[in-house]
């Protein structure tokens, strides 16, 4: 329990008064992901944890800002602050109105989304797209913030689906944009290890955590992801996992140590081939290799 209390009383002494932080949570609610297919009730647990976590973020400082997005297999949507007018919420049981608003809006919009979603076939979620939208939202908030104010922005991705190489380019574009905009990307993996997103965390100085036990999701969120990036270095967090930056070759999708790179399109191959499969450039053969194919022909 110590871990939970610590972060919430730390930030005020470090951040100055005109420094606020914006947290955009990307929640993967694609019903097709394996974890939810096996046991759909997990989603309720995840949503509850995320909402509690979001409220904790708002509790740290009254000016803190929050946005929650739902990410599906075909599109991503903002569920808090949702489209249309903000809900009119009165105080219930003495709870802070904003908390009630977050919980109600999120759940309402999410249930609307889930009831309209009918395909559970696609297991892959458009995480890259969701992160790109989050970056757009952050860019807008940065543009419209009052002069002189400082807005620290970060994105937290909570997902149970895997990351596939088909979105590789999109992921990389998002990561480099985030790095340029000084947006930290944190990733909380619920089910599978996500090597691509892990690279993104490393590029943007975020944290990557694969939750060992889903039951304790809230505690992991509060412990690891609640403290702001500047505070994190002072805390004892799980040690960073060494990121594997080896490239996967385009021909067999295997990680390689030494490879050949096409000078025109930078495609990576594990063996020398005379024609680039990506850009169809014909390469100049190095001398010893040029002899080999001829010999083969004669034998055939």
């Amino acid at each position, binding site marked *: 329990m110590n871990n939970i209390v610590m972060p919430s009383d730390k930030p005020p002494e470090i951040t100055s008064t005109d420094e606020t932080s914006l947290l955009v949570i990307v929640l993967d609610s694609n019903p097709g992901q394996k974890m939810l297919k096996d046991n759909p009730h997990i989603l309720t647990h995840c949503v509850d944890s995320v909402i509690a976590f979001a409220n904790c973020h708002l509790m740290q400082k009254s000016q803190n800002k929050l946005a929650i997005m739902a990410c599906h297999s075909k599109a991503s949507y903002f569920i808090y602050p949702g489209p249309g007018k903000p809900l009119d919420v009165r105080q219930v049981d003495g709870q802070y109105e904003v908390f009630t608003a977050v919980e109600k809006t999120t759940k309402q919009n999410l249930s609307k989304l889930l009831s309209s979603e009918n395909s559970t076939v696609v297991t892959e979620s458009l995480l890259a797209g969701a992160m790109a939208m989050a970056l757009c939202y952050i860019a807008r908030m940065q543009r419209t913030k009052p002069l002189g104010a400082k807005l620290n922005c970060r994105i937290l991705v909570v997902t149970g689906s895997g990351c596939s190489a088909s979105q590789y380019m999109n992921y990389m*574009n998002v990561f*480099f944009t985030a790095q340029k905009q000084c947006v930290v990307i944190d990733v909380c993996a619920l089910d599978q290890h996500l090597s691509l997103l892990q690279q993104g965390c490393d590029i943007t100085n975020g944290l990557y955590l694969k939750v060992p036990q889903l039951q304790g999701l809230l505690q992991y969120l509060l412990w690891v992801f609640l403290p702001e990036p500047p505070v994190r270095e002072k805390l004892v967090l799980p040690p960073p996992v060494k990121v594997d930056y080896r490239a996967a070759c385009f021909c067999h999708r295997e990680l390689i140590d030494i490879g050949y790179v096409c000078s025109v399109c930078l495609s990576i191959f594990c063996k020398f081939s005379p024609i680039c499969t990506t850009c169809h450039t014909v390469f100049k053969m190095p001398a010893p290799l040029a002899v080999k194919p001829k010999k083969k022909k004669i034998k055939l």
Partner: protein
Amino acid sequence: MGDEDDAKEYRWETGYEKTWEAIKEDDEGFLEASVADIIQKAKRKRQALKQGSQKLGMMRHLYLILDCSDSMSSQDLKPTRLLCTLKLLEIFIEEFFDQNPISQIGIIIMHNKRAEKISDLAGNGRKHIKYVNTLNQTSLIGEPSLQNGLEMALSSLKLLPSHASREILVIMGSLTTCDPGDINVTIENLKQEGIRCSIIGLAAEVHVCRYLAKETGGTYNVILDDSHFKDLLFEQVDPPPAAGCLESSLIKMGFPHQINVEGSEEPLTMCMCHVDSTSEGSKLTTGGYYCPQCFSKYCELPVECRACGLTLVSAPHLARSYHHLFPAANYTEINFDKQVALCFACQRQFGESDKQIYECPKCKKNILHRL
């Protein structure tokens, strides 16, 4: 430049785009909206040009030739031409390596009729910035020699393999050059080697620069003021289309990764990059990147292995260049007619001031606010 609609216009008048006619006051008498509109249009025009899969010279080897002659002390750029240039170069080098991670830069200065190499071709941006920062101490004397500068760059670029894109960027403050021989011969040699030479003039147009740029396929521009200077400099950041004689080949590269031996602590080792540097000595550290071929250790990537000559990169370095090669599709511009209330990406409400909005050509439903 403006289209020649009016034949009566003099040649020197057409150079102006008549920007004052394009600016219109809005209802409250402000010009800002109109100016923002012009900037926006220019941005989109530039973006539209980028489309199409051209062959690009990705592995760039660029020599910056900087005029450090007497004329650079002129104060028409604030505080002086040289200081302004150095400040911009600093940003340029950072941006250059950000966009072209597996490229290399070298710096040459021209002063007192001589060329002097400040730094050799290398891929480490921080080192170059350090060198650039020391340049403000140089004494600005004599005349520059364009030929000597070009020859020095040429002798080094000549040795590079044929798949490398070779470029020279000259920043010229002087209107004269004091050369030992016939510069036309040098230009001919550059042309034959396929080295693209671009020049940014700080004073006025000079024929020999125009000729050099034309012959070697580069660009020649003269700056108007410091912001125009910055624009021109940053045009050089995007990789240029590949020169005709550029050969394509497969390049062997290594992708280093940490070596983990089960159950043992990583040994303390020295890195090869600092092993013989005098300013910062090599320290014993754990971790680092090991060359997969000869196991030399380096503390930074990308680097060329000093022991075996293998180029060491990491996957994101290559990925960083992909957006030049496979650019994202452009949005289509449509007139705003209250089709939607909110911007799909940033959730901003569209208002009266939004005349144009943008639509994703792929999914159609996503309508975006001004980018």
